């Protein structure tokens, strides 16, 4: 998985009826966009390190500088 700052990571729900979860990438702690990522859960959520598994995918956004 490769992600950039500002991308959204979506994690599939693991049980029937469990909604997907998502978080925003704040920092890349690996080399060249590799994990782990410092992420924030929800709009004003907690920050944590994220180590993606097969349940997660990245939604890339165009970044303007």
């Amino acid at each position, binding site marked *: 998985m490769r992600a950039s700052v500002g991308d959204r990571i979506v994690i599939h729900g693991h049980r029937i009826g469990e909604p997907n979860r998502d978080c925003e990438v704040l920092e890349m702690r690996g080399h060249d966009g590799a994990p782990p990522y410092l992420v924030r*859960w929800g709009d004003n959520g907690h920050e944590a390190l*994220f*180590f*993606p*598994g097969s349940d*997660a995918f990245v939604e890339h956004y165009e970044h303007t500088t």
Partner: protein
Amino acid sequence: MRTVEMLHRSGVGVAPSRTIREVAGVMEQAGVGSVAVVDGDRLVGIVTDRDLVRRVLALGLQADARVDFVMTTPVITVGADDSLDVAFGLFATHGLRRLAVMRDDRFVGMLTIDDLLVSVVEQLGSLAKPITAEILFAQRDPAVPVVL
């Protein structure tokens, strides 16, 4: 199969200086039952929702305490490229429900006993498939011609 291929769920990590309240919030928002405690690149512990019950609530510990006060350490780990047989052995030997999966001394994810159970059931299912088909859709083998 390698352990890293069985990491169906993403892993979540926190710094040792985070409070128990913050870590509980991370668990809730990330939908996980355990988090790795990571100091820089180094895995230093694991905290589970069960730890929060037994070591915090049951003992009346303040939620503003640091998480490294209640984490489990040292952590039993397995290599990302180790075979599942190694993981089976560690689960059996240590009576664990979770194993930290490491690559180059860095945490990459949490392997749970549930992950292995799912794998075993899938393998049993694929083994049973031809037998099930034989029972449900029985066909007579063509008669072998008799050569006199």
